[in-house]
Structures are given as structure tokens and as C-alpha cells.
């Protein structure tokens, strides 16, 4: 309750600021404050859902620090650092060999390109001297500048066909922003994700930034309660994601098309998607569903509209189904979930009500006494009927196949029914009963057709088995008759 009041106050403040204060500088300051409040709201949100009220546009990006290139003498080929460090000790040898096998080692990006110094001299007093530009291990902030000095340079990156916007993006990420504004060097920098001496291509399946490895990479920090404590953000995202439909596809089925953390949050520009962005973020993959949603009455509601995560969650997205329509028991609805407490005619959405998966149901808003409830019932009934017909057809086809019957035709018909069923299910995003009912009826009709084909196969199998019994009996009668003749002949032979 107190949270609602606080959130209401924040909303009021934001509206006042947005409409009353014209100064761009002040807007930037207020947006910064909103970003801070979004962080604290997330801390109370076990699913990690961003604050739906944070509908303001992206904050004006801080001007990124200039990259800090390393200038050092070079003859284009010498790397005496490698030659000497191989012999220093085991640790240095391992580092040298790791670099040699890295993408940088293979591409001729030498030690001095990051550490400075003179790689043409084999005298340590020269090669590792300040005069030669040797900087040792660069600090964390400088490391970003060192990486960015090459990776933001289009001339250098052209031959590798690599993008050059990572550096600028990084400073717009939550990580980069904190590093720049709070000098918080505990945030992730380039080497925390890509490695330092052992940088590999993203497409290398052993690279930590290979899509399948990304969730564990992010979790290496974000699942660490001690590390996340100062930021007050939850640490269960990886565990939750792992069991989600996305996590299973990526981590269990190794389907690299499935989204990892970076797919929704961004990688170099990592930050939680905003309420206004989420439909586009999900729509990157679910293009057709996004188009259907944008036709819907929901999409017309503006800030009060339910978004993808209202019904599907965030890290815990599960396989959708007819269960998403209604609570199993009576829904304990609250008016303030969807209506403003002060003015019921003003619609709002209280996202906290949808944190619990069991409450991500249509009747959380469209309760039994609402005018739209019967429409929800109609949609649920149409889809349940189509699903039931599909399940029946699938079971009969399985039975016919078990009997050894060829069910190719029925399988094709069932696939067509499946396509229509998926279209009907996706059409739920339009919220239009007539559209959904039409597609559901089509799916049901195709499923019944497939079921009939399978039924005919089962009947055919029963007939064959019946005929088989008759034929076997006739054969046995013949065998018995022949056996009698044989006995008579044998007796004659011996007699």
C-alpha cells in the first residue's frame, strides 16, 4: 500500500516535471532521479520486472570519455614481450600462451597495444620504461578506453567487419553509466565478459559471450548476492530464466535462436527494457505476435495497457496456454489493479499484481462482474474446443500408427490443424472474439478431419485383424485335413 502511495507520488512528480519545467537540463536531472527510483523498485520486484510507470524516454546519454589509445614504438612485427614473458615464470608463460591462442594473438594485436612499452627492444629497462609508454595493467576505466580506442575506430575494424558502436553503447549502459557517474569500478567492463588475454570470437562456442554461455556469464555477477547487495537488485534471475521456455530452449536444447540476457537487455548497452520498449523488445523475435497485439484494444490504452510481461512474465516466461485465461479458483480482484483509486474512470495497471505467475490471468483485470468477462469466456471456450479436438486427433493418430497403419495423410491434416490452432492462439493478442473464434473453428474443423482419417485407419486395422482370424482358421482346417491324409498314408506305408 505504502509502495503504491510512493509510486503515485513519483508519477505525479514526473508528470509535473515533464509538463511544467521546460529546461532541458532539469529534465535530464529528473530523468536521472527516475532511473534511480526504477532501480529501487526493481529491488522489490522478485521477477526483476522494470517499473511500468517508468514510461519516460531514454535519459540523455552522458558524453562518453574519449578512448585512450596506447602509443608505442613498433616495427610492425617484433613482440619481445612475448619472447621474454614465456621464460619469466609459469604464470607469465600461461598468460603469454593464452594471448598467443586468442583472437588478438592470431590477429597480431600485441602486448604493447594494451600495456604500452616498446616491443622492439629486448632490454626490459627500455621495453617496460615509462619513456616507452609502458603503463602496466591499465585501470578498469582506462581499460574501457583502451579497448574502445581500437574498437571504435572504423578504419581499424573494417578489415574484421566488426561494428564500432560498442564503445559509445557501453557508456549508455547501466554499467557504463555507473562507471562514468559514480566511478563505480565494480561494474562490468569489456574484459569481464570478453576476457583479457583470452579474447575469442563471439561465434566460438568456448567463448563466454557465445549465446549459450551468456546467461551464465551474466549470472557470474548477477547471481552473486554479495556483489549485488549494494545495488539492491534481485539475484535469482538466472535460476528463474533457466526454467523458462527461453532458458530451456537456449541452455538445454542449445537453440541459439532463443533469447539470452543480451537479447532483451542489450549487451554493450545493457539495461532493463522500459515499459514503453517491451513490446518492441519482445517483438524483435515475436514479430507476428507484436503486429496482432498492436491491433488490439489493449494496445490502445497507452500507459495503462497490459504489455507482454503482464501476462507472460519476464525471466520466467512459460509455455502459454488456456490456463492464462482464468484463475483456478475465484480471482481475488482489486479495483485499483486497473482503475485509479482517486478517479475510477482513469485506467492504470498495477504491475505488482502480476509478479505471481498464478495471477497472470485475464480475470485479474476482467473479473466475473466486468462487461468483458463474457468475451474472455467466449475466447477461452473457442480455444479450449479447438485444443481438445486437436488433442483427440493426435491421440487417435498415435493409436493408428501403433497399430502399424500409415498415417501420413492424417499427419498432414493434423499439421494443418496445428497451424490454424497456433494462429487462433496468437490471435488472442488481438482480443477480438470474432477473429479468434473464426480461426479456432477452422482449427477444430481440420482437427476433426484428421481425427476421422485416423479413425478410418483404426477401423481398417480392426477389419484386417478380424479377417486374419478367419484366414488362419481356414489354414488350420486345411492343415488338419492334410494331417489326417498324411496319417492314413503313413499307416499304409508301414502296414
Amino acid at each position, binding site marked *: 500500500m505504502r509502495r503504491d502511495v510512493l509510486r503515485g507520488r513519483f508519477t505525479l512528480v514526473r508528470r509535473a516535471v515533464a509538463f511544467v519545467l521546460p529546461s532541458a537540463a532539469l529534465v535530464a536531472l529528473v530523468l536521472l532521479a527516475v532511473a534511480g527510483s526504477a532501480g529501487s523498485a526493481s529491488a522489490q520486484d522478485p521477477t526483476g520486472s522494470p517499473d511500468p510507470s517508468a514510461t519516460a524516454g531514454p535519459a540523455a546519454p552522458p558524453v562518453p570519455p574519449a578512448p585512450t589509445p596506447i602509443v608505442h614504438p613498433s616495427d610492425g612485427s617484433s613482440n619481445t614481450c612475448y619472447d621474454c614473458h614465456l621464460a619469466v615464470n609459469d604464470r607469465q608463460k600461461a598468460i603469454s600462451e593464452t594471448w598467443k591462442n586468442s583472437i588478438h594473438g592470431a590477429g597480431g594485436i600485441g602486448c604493447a597495444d594494451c600495456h604500452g612499452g616498446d616491443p622492439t627492444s629486448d632490454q626490459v629497462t627500455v621495453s617496460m620504461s615509462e619513456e616507452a609508454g609502458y603503463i602496466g595493467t591499465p585501470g578498469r576505466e582506462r581499460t574501457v578506453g583502451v579497448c574502445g580506442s581500437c574498437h571504435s575506430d572504423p578504419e581499424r575494424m573494417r578489415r574484421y567487419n566488426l561494428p564500432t558502436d560498442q564503445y559509445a553503447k557501453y557508456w549508455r549502459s547501466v554499467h557504463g553509466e555507473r562507471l562514468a557517474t559514480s566511478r563505480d569500478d565494480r561494474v562490468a567492463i569489456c574484459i569481464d565478459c570478453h576476457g583479457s588475454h583470452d579474447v575469442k570470437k563471439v561465434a566460438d562456442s568456448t567463448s563466454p559471450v557465445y549465446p549459450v554461455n551468456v546467461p551464465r556469464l551474466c549470472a557470474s555477477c548477477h547471481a552473486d548476492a554479495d556483489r549485488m547487495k549494494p545495488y539492491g537488485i534481485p539475484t535469482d534471475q538466472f535460476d528463474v530464466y533457466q526454467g523458462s521456455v527461453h532458458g530451456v530452449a537456449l541452455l538445454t536444447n542449445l537453440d541459439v535462436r532463443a533469447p539470452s540476457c543480451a537479447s532483451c537487455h542489450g549487451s554493450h548497452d545493457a539495461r532493463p527494457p522500459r515499459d514503453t520498449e517491451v513490446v518492441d523488445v519482445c517483438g524483435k523475435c515475436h514479430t507476428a505476435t507484436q503486429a496482432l497485439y498492436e491491433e488490439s484494444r489493449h494496445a490502445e490504452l497507452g500507459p495503462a495497457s497490459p504489455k507482454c510481461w503482464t501476462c507472460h512474465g519476464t525471466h520466467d516466461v512459460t509455455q502459454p496456454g488456456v490456463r492464462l485465461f482464468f484463475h483456478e479458483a475465484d480471482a481475488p480482484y482489486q479495483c485499483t489493479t486497473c482503475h485509479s483509486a482517486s478517479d475510477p474512470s482513469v485506467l492504470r495497471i498495477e504491475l505488482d499484481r502480476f509478479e505471481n505467475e498464478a495471477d497472470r490471468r485475464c480475470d485479474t483485470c476482467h473479473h466475473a462482474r466486468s462487461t468483458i468477462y463474457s468475451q474472455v469466456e467466449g475466447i477461452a471456450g473457442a480455444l479450449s474446443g479447438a485444443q481438445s479436438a486437436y488433442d483427440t486427433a493426435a491421440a487417435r493418430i498415435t493409436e493408428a500408427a501403433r497399430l*502399424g497403419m*500409415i498415417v*501420413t495423410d492424417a499427419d498432414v491434416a493434423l499439421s494443418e490443424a496445428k497451424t490454424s490452432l497456433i494462429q487462433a492462439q496468437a490471435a488472442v493478442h488481438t482480443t477480438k472474439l470474432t477473429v479468434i473464434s473464426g480461426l479456432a473453428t477452422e482449427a477444430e474443423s481440420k482437427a476433426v478431419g484428421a481425427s476421422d482419417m485416423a479413425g478410418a485407419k483404426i477401423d481398417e486395422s480392426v477389419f*484386417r485383424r478380424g479377417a486374419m482370424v478367419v*484366414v488362419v482358421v481356414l489354414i*488350420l482346417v486345411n*492343415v488338419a485335413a492334410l494331417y489326417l491324409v498324411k496319417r492314413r498314408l503313413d499307416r499304409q*506305408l508301414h502296414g
Partner: protein
Amino acid sequence: MTGEAERDGGMTGWLEPRLRLGPVLGAALHVRVPMAARTYYFGGIALFLFAIQVVTGTLLALYYKPTPDAAFESVKFITSDVSFGWLIRSMHHWGANLMILFVVAHLLRVFFQAAYKFPREITWVIGVGLLGLTLAFGFTGYLLPWDQRAYWATVVGTEIAGSVPLVGEPLMLLLRGGMDVTEATLSRFFGIHVLALPLIMAGLVGVHLLLVHQLGLAHPKRPEPRQGDPTPSTPSTRSTPSTPATDERLRPFWPHYLLDELIAWYVLLGILVVLASMFPAGLEEEANALETPAHIKPEWYFLAVYELLKHVPRIVGILLPVVGIGLLTVWPFLDRSPEVLARRRKVAVGGATLVLAAGIGLTIWGYVS
């Protein structure tokens, strides 16, 4: 005279003056076989199954279209739409499996009873050839439905053939009609399956039966007397129609032995009908050269070789069956002792038992792995 015969003998009386097959049929049927002979009717059953294959195969050929574009659909049409097409195809499918089973059983019976020894060495060699032909029937027929299993089993099978030293690569090219399993492979497999193999097999079966007829069935307990033997140990197993049936250890081939065969054939027909009805021949997805199935296995009769190849060096896995078949073919010329009793042929019987056990073991292993 002819008119009287026609009047007295009905249809036989009418046909005989026109065909004059009486003496031939008499010579073919009126022979005697040792009562001690235990053939278990394996050879006769294999012959019956061959006849089933010829009849059902001919019916299938009426609808089958041997091109990659049409083969799969034509088999589906036969199985789903042609009246009793499912029965014909399923009987052909099960008949093929049972034929291999009974040809092998026949070979084992002959081996363990030492029926391959003098004077039946040539009969044995032809018999081994008939086993090879039966396996070739299975291999070439397997591709014809042109589904995923058929296609990929043939890819693997022809690759194995390609591993045979010296002749492997040309053999694989010859079988496939190119580098890959394509339309050319289907055409030649079809041609071999329905033309070349049946003609060769019919010829060899004819010679095999002729030799069986000429030499008679071997006595399982007594060696065949050789020319110049001082004391013939057994009477001749053959007799002309005029030979009186006084020897109690012999019985007429017609009708006594042939009646037993007929009963065995009826039983086999019943088994075929049950198998075809309970487990009809299936069809997987249409062959797709770009989609390799997860588990490719050959048919059960090649599983032992397939499993062997997984556990021994490839060259050993290829050469071992080749040498084995070669050894099997010339075995009567290596084992020349007249002894027929199993208990006195410990090396041959023991060795064959071990090979048989290894073959069964590898087949089961290949099936479950």
C-alpha cells in the same frame, strides 16, 4: 487309342498324349528318401517363400514407379489405396525376412548334418550362392520404398561395400551409379531386384533342385558310399518308379514327403498372414538426402557386420565377413573326411557354433545399441 485314354483318364488322359510329361514327372516325383532324414523342411520352405516373393513382387511391380519423384508416393498408394495392396506389400516384406531366415536355417541344417560332403559339394556351393542372392534381394529391395530408412540404410550399406580393399571404390560406384545414392541407384537397384536376381536365382534354384533330385537326401548318420568302397553302408537313396518299396528305411517322395512339405508351407502361410496383419510394412518420411536421421541401422540380417565394424578396425570388419563367406563356399573341399556324425566332427561343429553364437550376439548387440 488316344480317344480311349482321354475317355478313361479325364484331363490327365487328355494332356498326356499332347505333352508326354508322364515319364519326366514320374522321374521327378517317384523317388524315395531316407526315413531317417531330418530336413525340417527348411529348404522347401525357402522355396515356397521364393514363390511367394515372385507372386507378390509381380503384383507390386504393377503399381511401383522406380523414380525418386514417384517411388515413395507409389509405395504409399499401394499400401493405402490399392485393394489389398497393404497385404501384398506386407507379405512381400515379411516373406523377404522369413526367406533369409529359412535359407540360413537350411544352410545350418546342412552344415551340422554334414550333408555338404561327397557327393554334394556342388549343391552346397550353389546353396551358398543362393544365400548370397537372397541377401542381395534384401539389399536391393530395401531401397525401393525410397523413404528415409531405405535411403540412408543404402547410403551406409554401399559405403561399407566401398570399404572392401582393392575393389571397394569401383564396387561402390557400380552399385550407386555415381558418387551418391541417386536416381541412378534406384534404377539399377530396381532392375537388379526385379530382373537380374530373379532370373539368376530361378536358374540356380533349378540346378540346386536338380542336384538334390539326382543325389537324393543325405543320410544324417551314414557317409555316402564312394565308388570302390568295399562295403556300401547304405542302400541308394534314389530309386526308379519300378523299384519296389521294400526297404523300410526309405519312403516315397510323392506323396508322403511332399505332403509334409505342403503342411509346412500352409503353416508358413498362416505365419505370414498373421505377421502381415499384426505388423504391416510401414513407411517413414520420404527420402531426403539433406537430412540425416539420428540413428541409421541396416536390416537385422546385416546388423552383425554393422556391429562388428564398430568394434574392430574397419579393414578387419570388412575382410572378416568376406573371408568368412569365401571359407563357407569352399568348406566342402577343405573338410574332406567322410565322417557325418556331429560328435565326431568336434572342430567343425564347435567352430560353427561359436561363429553362430557370435553372429547372434552381434546382431542382438547391434539391435539394442
